[in-house]
């Protein structure tokens, strides 16, 4: 099992380095998604399959998609010659190789998974949920307030300024 951990960790580190050193924002975001997937494999190996699923669904699925939307809205990436860059193998060969290694890693880890035996106890999602809603109930409520504040704040900051003048009175 250890070799899977080392492979996933190496992929996470390499793709994070590519993400923070890239020139193009979209490429960096895609490398970061790869890094998050590798970290999710590490979570799976650390006996936290529920957290691994949350990492893929929320981090790679929701937060990174938000990033990519904003990056595309702002047109940060280079628009010219983009098609040519996409067709350039240098652009996609490294992420493809890393992602393929990660896939093989995950499949081998799943295959070599020992059957669930009674002695070794794994933390189940049920246990996490019980702990979340009994010991940490106050923290859940605080997190709910924080999310509410975040929604209101993002709505307020994201709203465009309303026009008050008639269109004939606008300064050109």
């Amino acid at each position, binding site marked *: *099992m250890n070799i899977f951990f080392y492979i996933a960790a190496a992929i996470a580190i390499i793709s994070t380095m590519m993400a923070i050193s890239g020139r193009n924002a979209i490429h960096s975001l895609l490398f970061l998604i790869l890094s998050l997937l590798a970290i999710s494999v590490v979570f799976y190996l650390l006996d*936290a399959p*529920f957290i691994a699923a*949350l990492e893929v669904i929320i981090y790679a699925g929701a937060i990174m998609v938000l990033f990519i939307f904003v990056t595309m809205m702002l047109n940060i990436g280079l628009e010219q010659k983009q098609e040519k860059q996409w067709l350039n193998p240098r652009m996609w060969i490294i992420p493809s190789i890393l992602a393929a290694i990660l896939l093989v890693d995950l499949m081998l880890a799943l295959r070599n998974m020992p059957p669930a035996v009674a002695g070794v106890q794994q933390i189940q999602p049920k246990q996490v949920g019980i702990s979340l809603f009994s*010991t940490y109930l106050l923290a859940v409520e605080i997190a709910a307030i924080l999310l509410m504040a975040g929604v209101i704040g993002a709505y307020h*900051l994201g709203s465009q300024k309303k026009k008050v003048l008639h269109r004939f009175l606008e300064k050109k």
Partner: protein
Amino acid sequence: MLTVPVETQLLFAGILFFLGLIGLLVRRNLVFMLLSIEIMFNSAGLVFIIASHHWNQPDGQVMFIFILAVTAVEVAIGLALILQVYHHFKTLDVDKINKLKD
């Protein structure tokens, strides 16, 4: 069973954290800076999961869920602020966004 020593696992989390820190310090683009903060949040969560695995307690996973909520809020507010900054200054270079009023 995973028998990687816990020091190695923590070293992995530490490397990820410092990569995020380097990115935050080196890059001058606001989107990249927010991305680096994400990397650091994620490595902090990784430390919680490692501790949860090490002590065989569910508390670390609970903390990771809270980190997830905080990260989601931070990204939403941060990206809204980035949009406003871009509409106002027409750039995302933090060296050029150094005036409180213009």
